[in-house]
């Protein structure tokens, strides 16, 4: 009986979360579950609320879409879930100075309103997804102080030329290759010396 009860309980919980929440709240709540949160900074993230706009560290626009996630210095560990790429109105993803590991999901490239992607000072690994080059609105890209590897995708560098990128910091990673930059726009690029330019 015990196991069946547990199973039924699980089903019951699944029902409670799915029935009463919305897409963006769902996504952020899934992200909460994927993280360890030793400081309880995500305590207010209640998936049964109509939207996540009253949660701490979340800012919404007037249409109740999430535009900011402010979780720098929050002591979080765990990975980034690909579904974050479905927060379609997100402008600021501030997750700097945590212990976030794993790779940067390519789906973040779907955040076409993103202005600032601050993932610096974490433990991210793997490549910088070239899909980030789709974010023409991106002004600030700070990925320094991780374990990112591979080359910086051309599409991302092209943001200097074709997008709004004004600051890119990729220093203190395991990146290599060549940075080909535009001289037509004013941009600050901070990088390791082993990346030639």
């Amino acid at each position, binding site marked *: *009986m015990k196991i069946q009860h547990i199973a039924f309980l699980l089903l019951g919980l699944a029902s409670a979360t799915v029935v009463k929440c919305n897409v963006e709240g769902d996504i952020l709540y899934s992200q909460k579950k994927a993280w360890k949160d030793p400081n309880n900074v995500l305590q207010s993230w209640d998936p049964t609320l109509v939207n996540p706009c009253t949660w*701490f560290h979340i800012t919404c626009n007037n249409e109740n879409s999430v535009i900011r996630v402010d979780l720098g*210095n929050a002591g979080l560990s765990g990975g980034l879930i690909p579904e974050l790429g479905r927060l379609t109105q997100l402008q600021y993803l501030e997750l700097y100075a945590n212990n976030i590991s794993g790779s940067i999901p390519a789906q973040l490239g779907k955040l076409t309103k993103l202005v600032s992607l601050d993932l610096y000072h974490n433990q991210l690994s793997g490549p910088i997804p070239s899909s980030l080059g789709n974010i023409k609105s991106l002004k600030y890209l700070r990925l320094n102080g991780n374990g990112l590897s591979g080359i910086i995708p051309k599409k991302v560098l092209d943001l200097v030329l074709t997008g709004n990128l004004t*600051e890119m910091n990729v220093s*203190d990673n395991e990146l290599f290759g060549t940075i080909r930059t535009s001289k037509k726009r*004013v941009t*600050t690029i*901070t990088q390791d010396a082993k990346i030639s330019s």
Partner: protein
Amino acid sequence: MESFFSQKSLPGLLLLLLVFSVYPKPASTSLASQGRVLLQWKASLRSQQSLRSWNPSTSPCNWSGITCSLRRHRVITVVNLPSMGLDGPLHTINFSGLPSLTGLNLMFNRLGGEIPPSIFTLSELISFDVQGNDITGTIPARISSLTKLRSLNLSGNKISGSIPLSLGNMTSLDFLILSGNGFSGSIPEEIGDLQNLQELDLSANFLTGSIPQSLGNLTQLSLLDLSLNHLYGSAPPSLANLQNLLVLSISNNTLTASIPASLGNLTRLIKLNLWGNHLSGPIPHEVGNLVQMTNLVLAHNSLLGSIPLSLRNLSKLSTLYLFNNHISGTIPAELGNLVEMRDIDLSHNLLTGFIPSTLGNLARLRNLILSYNELSVPIPSSLANMTSLILLDLSNNQISGCIPPSFANRSLEELSVINNSLSGSVPNLTSLVSLKLAYNDLSGHLPPDVCRGGKLQHFTAAYNKFHGPIPESLRNCSSLVRVRLDRNNLTGDLFDHFGVYPNMRYIDLSYNRLSGMLSPKWGSCSNLTSLRISNNRLNGTIPSEIGQSTRLGALDLSSNHLVGELPKNLYNLISLIELNLSSNQLSGELPSEIGKLLKLKRLDVSGNNFSGVIPREIGGCKQLISVDMSTNSFSGSIPYEFGQLVDLQELLDLSQNSFSGHIPSQLGQLTLLQILNLSHNNLAGRIPPSLINMASLSALDVSHNELEGPVPDGQLFRRAPMEWFTGNRGLCDVVAGLPSCSSSPPRGASNVIFLSGMAVLGALLLFFRFVGFAAQLMKRRKQIANGTSQTGGAAFSIRNFDGGDAYDEIIKATENFDDKYCIGKGGCGSKETTAFSFTELHCQQEK
């Protein structure tokens, strides 16, 4: 719920064993030796209090949980020790010493270790139940030597490995319950040979592969539970042969394809649960043949089409869960005939049209959830006839019209109509636990007796057009947890309408027309995390008691008429993340205690009458990402500790104050800051060159101060509009529109670029002047020699000589200077390792 069958059947079987344990074979061991076997096991257990009656001085047949045969030569036939708190190993029972055993029930203890091989000597064993223990290891293939076994229940243990094929030889098995273990691999085809099987429960394991066709041979089966595994493929049509099936559950797997129409043959089926698969296609019309059905659960799939009308035949149906599919069309009015219905959840589909008024006939219905559809027509007043209804969730549709007055005084506990197009007033609901009305066009007064039942926890009416007072009954509503009445036209005196709420976590009354003073009682809401009463007409002072709500993370009292000084207690609110007191008439100084707010991310005290010096302790609030202190009467110098707030990103606004002294050069450390506004103060001296390090700055305003000297030569400033700098004493250079610095260049230590640039430019100019002078001299000599004379022209041509290129050359040169300068200084992020980093500035004059 499926387990009820197995739970009913197993004790029944055991009873059978107890009554008819007339043992056919002569026992090969004596009762006394069998007792010794059990006493040895008892001695190996860590906790054995419950076996106090197991005593060598009495006959084992008198021990608790022991049954003996009724023959003259009595032997132990059944060991029945459920939930006895036994803690220890299982393998210390020497089963070969108990050959007469027919029943062994050790369920819900804490027995560990593996299944001992000696158990396979129990050739008479009929029932073996160790459900709910900590048994590990695998099922040995030898288990099939237990040829008389009718019931095998290993559920809720930690047994892993694959299900042995040899199980297929145990043709006496009636009950095979292996749920809640770690079994992996696929379901053996051979299970289909167990022709007598009545219950097969393999749920909550890690089984993969498809469901074997052979299961269709198990025609005696009444329960088949394969839920919570990783099974894939389609449900085999052979399942339609299981004519005796009462419960079929394959939920939480990854089944694909459509639901086989042949399942309509399972006419005895009571429960069908296919929740959480990837099933597609329509719900087969044939489901309507399952007239015994009480529970139909097809939620969390990709089912299409409409709800089949044939469901009207399911007159015993009490649970209908179709949520999270792509079901379209309207809700059939015939559902109103299913009078046994208790739970209906059709949420998260594409249902359109109206809610059938016939649903009002469902007198036993407790939960009706239709949220997240595209329902549009008004709510039928007949819904209020559902006298058992506890939960009604119609949120996130496009329902228009009003909430029928007939709902007044009903027993409804939870009502949610969030996000619809409802208008009109709300009936006087009285016994609610949760009332969610937000995001509609509702008007009139809020229901006055909303907390008369004393149970109200969640009350959300935000984003409507309610007017009039806060409901009377809220004052003593100590059950409240979450209240959102923001963005309405509520009026009245706030002081009177709220009491003490020990469970309150969140309250937002912003954007109303509430007046009166803030009650000190808010300080007694010890669980409050958010208190938002912005944009109202609050007056008086902020009561010092508010400092007792130490869990407060957000305090927003902006845009009111609050006066007086901030209570010192306010700085006890060390959990604050957001503090917004802007647009009031607050006065006094900010004390040094502000540095205790270590979690503060947003601070807005703008638009008040604060004065005095900003304490340097502000530098301790290291989490700040936005600070707005504009439009006050702050004076003194800007504390350089602002430069320690390196996470500042959104805004630092100190404008419209009376700050004097210099701009602290430490502000240059705010490399993430996007907007810096220092305008309309009395700041003097030069703009510190360190500000060119503010790489993220997109807007700067230092206008209307007493600043002078050259604007630092950084990329931001070269493109900056002049408005950022106007109204100062004498700023010059760099910015288009500002005058050039006529006097000697500045001697700032960090102006190497500028100096170098000037040096190169000067050298070039001197060189060209010299060359030009020489050329002109020669020309003049020639002219004099030729007798012709030209004036002007030549001197200008030298000065204009390819000026653009020269400028570019200088910029390129200074880039190099810049790199060297950064590395030399060691303040631009250089590292101890060889992988030093440097800042590279790529700049070109934009035309």
